[in-house]
């Protein structure tokens, strides 16, 4: 029971951060039907931004969040106006290969400037602190902060999209680009904003993640894949979808560990000796596969 509660909580906490990672991907996809393969690289850059800012200034890693957000916003906008905008004129395959190329570019730039070694944050208010909630549930402060701030970020983005004039214009553009243009809404500007917000949220997620995850220039791909699974599960372009799908994916990653513990506990000879935990992400991709097979528009498909 205790281990069950523990893995549930761990799954939900990491799930919220996964959701925040996927948020930008779903916003960009919803706005312009473009899959951004470089999404995980933005996350990686967010991790480096937080780590290097904190090392250079001596600030606590937690306080580097605004820096990561601002850098992400500017980088997203720069990528859109400097590059993606031109891809839109080409065929679908150009868009796919284009963001794939952006992924390679960003990764190799990171390799060039930051080197290939693993880097970790060793100190900070969050690091190595935990709360014991009883019932065997111990919550590391890093993950709790990640989860709480992910919820805050979702709330902010949701309010932005539904309460502000510009946000509503973004929703309108996502729903019907040409129709929105006939209302006087500039598609170009909305696309740029989507990339800005997408970049900001994912780099904030990176700044949270780096508190408990070491960073290398290659860290992005794993999270790109997780974000894809979440966006597919939640429905392409759906913000609430990304939120709930993130939680589900977080829980899914806990299943194999729980399974291992269960087989160990029951001493079951069947499966004993085969650890399932290394397959935790395989489970995520399996869920992705099943969703694409059974319900391609995701759980919260919203554009008809």
């Amino acid at each position, binding site marked *: 029971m205790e281990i069950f509660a523990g893995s549930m909580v761990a799954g939900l906490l990491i799930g919220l951060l996964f959701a925040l990672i996927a948020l930008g991907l779903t916003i960009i996809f919803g706005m312009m039907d473009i899959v951004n393969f470089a999404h995980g690289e933005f996350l990686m850059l967010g991790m480096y931004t937080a780590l290097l800012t904190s090392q250079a200034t001596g600030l606590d890693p937690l306080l580097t969040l605004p820096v990561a957000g601002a850098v992400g916003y500017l980088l997203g906008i720069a990528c859109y106006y400097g590059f993606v905008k031109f891809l839109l004129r080409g065929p679908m395959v150009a868009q796919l290969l284009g963001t794939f190329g952006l992924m390679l570019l960003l990764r190799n730039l990171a390799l060039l400037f930051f080197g290939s070694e693993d880097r970790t944050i060793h100190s900070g208010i969050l690091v190595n602190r935990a709360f014991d909630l009883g019932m065997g549930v111990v919550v590391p402060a890093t993950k709790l902060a990640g989860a709480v701030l992910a919820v805050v970020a979702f709330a902010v983005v949701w309010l932005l999209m539904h309460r502000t*004039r510009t946000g*509503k*214009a973004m*929703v*309108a553009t996502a*729903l*019907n680009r*040409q*129709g*929105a*243009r*006939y*209302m*006087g*809404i*500039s*598609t170009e500007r909305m696309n740029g904003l989507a990339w800005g917000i997408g970049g900001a949220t994912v780099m904030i997620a990176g700044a949270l993640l780096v508190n408990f995850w070491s960073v290398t220039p290659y860290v992005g791909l794993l999270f790109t894949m997780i974000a894809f699974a979440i966006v597919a599960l939640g429905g392409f372009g759906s913000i609430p979808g990304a939120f709930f799908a993130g939680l589900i994916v977080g829980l899914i990653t806990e299943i194999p560990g729980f399974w291992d513990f269960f087989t160990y506990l029951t001493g079951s000879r069947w499966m004993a000796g085969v650890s399932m935990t290394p397959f935790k992400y395989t489970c995520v991709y399996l869920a992705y596969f099943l969703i694409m097979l059974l319900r391609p528009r995701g759980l919260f498909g*919203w*554009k*008809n």
Partner: protein
Amino acid sequence: MSEPLLQVKQIKVRYSGLPVIHGVSLVVYPGETVCVVGSNGAGKSTILRAVMGSQRAFDGEILFNGAAIRNLRTEAIVHLGVVYVPEEKMLFRPLSVEENLLLGAYCLNDQEQIAKNLEFVFALFPRLRERRKQAASTLSGGEQQMVAVGRGLMSNPRILMLDEPSLGLSPLLVDELFGAVFKLKEEGLTILLVEQNVREALEMSDRGYVLQTGRIVEEGTGAELLRSDKVQQAFLGL
């Protein structure tokens, strides 16, 4: 007569590479209701889309209030006060009627003016007031058309361009919709109307143009065109 509000001069437009509009000119004066009639495929909608810049005219000139707009972006043209209600309606389907209408006022900043316009639209189409919280996708075809026209009115347009507003509506609804358009005309709104419903459109319009395979073949006042042999033979079956 005063200066024309909208002037289309000898425009030529291609559609997937093929020329479909071969040098069309038309003019709309402030306060006028002008219609372009013609059969399906004559290129009526193409003219409106060329004015909006969503389908570029490769030759000719388009002037709004004396200024050239042929090379402006669609959204910039909208901000000048040229509003287009497309044939496909292009509603924001999951959003409510009210949200759709408010998006129509994107160009405005004055909240009071927006509230006033919303009230005006609800007075024009009382049915939309009843359904204000309903998703646009749940409305009937006629109601959706009302949302599309209402949304077009929300930004205080200087010219309203309606593309086949009666398309797919039952005769009863067509009457209701034309009744509303007539009220707008009485209010002094400048309207450019494209219609297949030739009789109703011409009866309501001050002037009209007859378009056939991308060329204007006849023009005149609404009453003149209704009497003309060409119109009677081609469209009214007389």
